[in-house]
């Protein structure tokens, strides 16, 4: 996807006022400011990234029917991460970029029922059926994970953990990169593993 197309799809999908201010925001890259966005969550509320300046923000790309995402939900691993970190003041956005008709696409009602059933506790689920937020952050897979620090800088982009499989048994022995990065950052340390290959299923964007 070239930058012009990326630009166009972002324009179509999001309300973007602040976003267009600086061209550099197109590159979501670890070490750079995370591009701002406005996106509607599954309760109908518009969530604006820059309103959470001062807090850590986690973005979790999600497709409940992807076997890799499924592994982390059926095991309760993702829900535990959400509980653990939101209880420490972290903002957690689950993002669904599946297009209508594609695997993982959810209406707000379907998603709210799922969150309740799975006892998930993200701060909010951002519905991104046009893929604008996905393209803005170049999200490739589910479950791809990104972390933004209180200064608005992207500090982690990649996999949820070190074992790129669909098997629940692998979670216990995997190194969880989200825990690692948040712990290090909150302790004032450099994030030692800021980038990994984001394993999983391709994000099901509109074709």
């Amino acid at each position, binding site marked *: 996807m070239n930058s012009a197309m990326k630009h166009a799809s972002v324009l179509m999908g999001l309300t973007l006022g602040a976003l267009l201010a600086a061209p550099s925001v197109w590159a979501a*890259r670890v070490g750079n400011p995370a591009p701002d966005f406005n996106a509607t969550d599954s309760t109908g509320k518009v969530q604006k990234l820059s309103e959470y300046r001062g807090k850590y923000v986690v973005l979790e790309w999600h497709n409940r*029917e992807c076997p890799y995402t499924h592994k982390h939900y059926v095991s309760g691993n993702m829900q535990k991460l959400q509980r653990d970190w939101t209880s420490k003041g972290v903002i957690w956005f689950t993002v669904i970029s599946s297009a209508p008709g594609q695997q993982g696409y959810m209406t707000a009602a379907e998603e709210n029922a799922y969150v309740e059933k799975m006892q998930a506790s993200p701060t909010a689920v951002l519905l991104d059926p046009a893929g604008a937020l996905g393209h803005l952050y170049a999200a490739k897979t589910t479950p791809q994970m990104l972390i933004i620090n209180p200064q608005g800088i992207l500090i982690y982009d*990649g996999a949820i953990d070190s074992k790129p499989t669909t098997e629940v048994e692998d979670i216990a022995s995997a190194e969880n990169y989200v825990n690692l990065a948040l712990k290090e950052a909150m302790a004032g340390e450099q994030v030692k593993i*800021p*980038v990994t290959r984001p394993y999983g299923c*391709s994000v*099901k964007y509109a074709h």
Partner: protein
Amino acid sequence: MPARFCLLGNRWLICPIFILLAVCLPAAPASPPHAIVTLIAEQRSIQPRHKFWAGLHFQLEKHWHIYWINPGDSGEPPRVAWDLPQGFRAGPIAWPAPHRLENPPLVDYGYEDDVLLMAPLDPPSRLSAGHTAELRATVKWLICSNICVPEQKQVALSLPIEDDPPENDSRWRQLFDQARAQMPRRMPSGWSATALSEAGHFILSVKTGTQESAAAFFPLAPLQIENAAPQQVTLGSGAVRLTLQKSDQLLKPIAFLKGVLILGDRKAIAINAPVASRGNSGKSLSERKRRQ
């Protein structure tokens, strides 16, 4: 094609009516696998102490694919856990050259239709002729079309142990020959590969001494080049040059660019190009100029 729609899951059945009852309903609880995987050996018997080649033969449903050792932007390569008689050792899979699988905005690397993943097996010296060796393995793979499904199978093969040199199994000769033809080869003598690191790109230059009709690079490591970016290829007389967009996630310099270069009609060459940066190596700059 019908199966592809039907297997999207129980909630999303957009099957043409005429196949709805025939295919979708029985398939709903446990989908049939999208790949047939069998364990085969190149030879009919095992001779003690003599290494031989086994292969996992994947026959994939149309429009479905599995992945290379570097799967690209999504996916996961097949894994094999061998369960062999005592003293046998298995070597790593020899990966045939991959294909570029376009999945906009992503690009993956893998195989469609039919592929043989070969692995060397090393039998011990103390084996009794007249017995049979049971070779077993658990194979796990991710297979995808527009959706992905993890599958697995236990495969097995019995081969007699004989002291005489084994005969090849003619049933599989073509499969092994084809797989070998797709294996990346070491760079021929006289060829050389170097890479130059620029702001947003690597420039991979390969001196071949030949005139090639096409070239494409497949990186062995993730997060070095942007898989989906078009590769700008210059096919000179005696040299090939590719401009490869760096991955947005590449934060540190790399010493080597490793991968497979596929030339012309799928001639695959293993590449291990030292990377020089513009400004700190006059040598590679001048080399580059010479090749232009």
